[in-house]
């Protein structure tokens, strides 16, 4: 019986992983953070935001904040 053709998919280079890449380089992530900040204001109007965005903010920092906010939002509405 003929076997399906199998195509090898190479791994990306190890150096591709750059969590310290500046956030300002990625408009999509910047805006995702901005949208989460808007949502956060409605959830905790009197609390300081979970991230302070400046020139030193990295993609990894953004991911950490997005994780925090995703987990908060996913508790709504049943678990809070």
């Amino acid at each position, binding site marked *: 019986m003929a076997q*399906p053709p199998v195509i090898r998919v*190479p791994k990306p280079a190890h150096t591709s992983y*750059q969590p310290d890449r500046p956030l300002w380089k990625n408009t*999509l992530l910047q*805006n995702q953070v901005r949208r989460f900040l808007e*949502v956060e204001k409605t959830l905790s109007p009197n609390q300081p935001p979970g991230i302070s965005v400046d020139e030193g903010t990295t*993609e*990894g920092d953004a991911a950490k904040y997005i*994780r925090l906010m995703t987990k908060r939002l996913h508790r709504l509405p049943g678990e809070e």
Partner: protein
Amino acid sequence: MSAGLDNLKHVVVLMMENRSFDHMLGALRAEDPRINGLTGDETNPDTDNEPAKVAPQAEFQSQLDPDPDHSFPAVQKQLFFGTPGPPAAPSMQGFVQSYWDKQHDVAHSHKIMYYFAPGKLPVLHTLAQSYALFNGWFASIPGPTVCNRAFAHYGTSFGKVDLDIFYVVEPFKSIYERMLAAGRTAKLYYFDPSSSTQEVVNLLKDQPQIFATYQQFLDDCKSGALPDYSFVEPNYSDHPGEDGGEQLASDQHPDHDVQAGEVFIASIYNAIHQNQDLWESTALLITYDEHGGIYDHVPPPACIPDGFQASLADTGGMPFAFDRLGVRVPAILVSPWVAKATVVPGPEDPTNGRVFEHASIPATITQHFIGTYDNRSPREKAAQTFLDLLTDEMRPDSDCPGFELD
């Protein structure tokens, strides 16, 4: 109804980020002239008024840095450079000059014309040549991610052409809400909590029941628990995983590694392919949200207006009634019921050409799983659907490629 459609139980949509058709697939024209890719002679003028030619020199990473501009005003320049602007036909001559605007480097601006050489993208190129490739699938809006992804979820962006938060305008409901209300099942699988969905306000908030993670997608494929409709989002950032390991961004958004996206696409395909029952009853659509500012040679066509008018503040002062499409993006329909090496003609074929856009996604899902449903945007109601590409004949597994991940 074809046997393929009769057997169809699941539709999976994978939407990647920010790459144009010609950039990813333009090279395939040399191997199959039905594919409306590049001849190799296409040019754009640079800021010295010298022609910058397309070249098969695209790299996986570190080439499109800074990120090419794909805001609404920048895309208008890419499309209409050298013309009086709409309603004139797009010239597709402003990509190089638009990229020059980012850092005023003439040599670097030419890189926006680069495309991947044949075989450099083994996953996307293999799938495009094995299943159904759309010559005419366009982003819904000549603008950035969020408004384009909104068309995939709602069939409209509610008048937005940018990355800002938007609000749902009744009566248009998301495809997930429609499916659940009709007693069907639907899930949006985001990568993980550190890279959650781009649909923050309208979907993620208050609707946790429609979300799951990529790991859950893999588990659901294995156990046969995939819902009727699944929408999969890639990983949008380099970040540590829940287990402390490295999670590499797989969205292919510049300047993320394109090869990581290849691995991700292959993993979605494999997850479906490796469960035989699922493979025989699933159609997988792989597409991109928008072109990311990267060159494509096909002028986006006009479409019927969406009933909204964009804010002039968002468009840079240009009136826009959602009556023309964004730049062409890759789109491939995968199923064993698709005839091998199908090329769906686009605008290059005035007789048989078909034009698809992201509103085609909810239009197709609604048509197949729900049936008649009136409360849809004008664009979605007019959108082409794609499940007619499933045939009566199921291809044997020996005719369907598999991917081995290193």
